[in-house]
């Protein structure tokens, strides 16, 4: 999985867009990168899952660790684009209720 960060938009949220499989091989490095950004002072981050077709428990764990780091740093995390099986995995893991979701890009709010 690759990910890239976009500069903060008008709402103050920087978007991290993932592409590929958020799985046991990629998720630990992804979590470490995002958590480092939070600890470095990023206060508003949006995780964009639009191009993620596969999410496993390591990906779920990564999101939980990011949320925990954000809580400790009083930062805010939003997610966008969770659909298909990644969304089902979040639901089955009972983590979906922790997520503040934005509408998919291009959809009206």
């Amino acid at each position, binding site marked *: 999985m690759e990910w890239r960060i976009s500069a903060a938009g008008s709402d103050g949220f920087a978007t991290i867009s993932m592409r590929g499989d958020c799985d*046991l091989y990629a998720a630990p490095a992804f979590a470490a990168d995002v958590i480092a950004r939070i600890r470095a002072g990023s206060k508003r981050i949006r995780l964009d899952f639009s191009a993620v*077709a596969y999410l496993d428990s390591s990906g779920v764990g990564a999101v*939980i660790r990011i949320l925990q780091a954000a809580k400790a740093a009083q930062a805010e995390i939003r997610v966008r684009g969770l659909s298909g099986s990644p969304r089902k995995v979040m639901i089955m893991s*009972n983590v979906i209720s922790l997520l503040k979701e934005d509408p998919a890009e291009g959809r009206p709010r």
Partner: protein
Amino acid sequence: MRAPIVRKLIVDEGNELFDARGMRCLAFPSDFSRIREYASTVLTDCPESFREDNLLEQQLSEIIKNAVKHGNRCDRTRIVRVWFDLRKRARFIVEDEGEGFADLEAWNDFYRKRQLALHDQDFERFLSLASYRGPRSGEEDGGNSLVAALEYWNGGMIFNTKKNKVGVVRWFPGGSGAVAPASRKEVP
């Protein structure tokens, strides 16, 4: 208010889920870098209707990962055996050569507290409980694979007494998916 749903991991050595008669079996070395490949191999002839995008492969990968990582400690000389039957439903037995899931009851307790926090809409407490840390857990372990597994394996998820072997079943909406698309025949 509805009571919270609290499922449990169960130990039942004599459960019919461990009856491997008629099941195919593959054995894999405990190579962490090949876990998803192993799951994909097992599902080579899987009916499309069972795959549900890639949920089946993902859930099977989780069980194989637990066997490779936590059971066999990624020791490539240790084998993970996977029995599988993809007729009518997806049924698997996965066995490792490790010491067994000693933290099973502790995990059940963690899960119960987590579900109660969710039921109480106490998200602060839920977030603090969102990851399980057992004596052997690593930084990246959170117990989430088992939370989802209890939801996904709707026909049961049972451990043997030693807890190094798990049997799981998933039934699918619409009944049998026993006929793979490649061999499916249209009935006029």
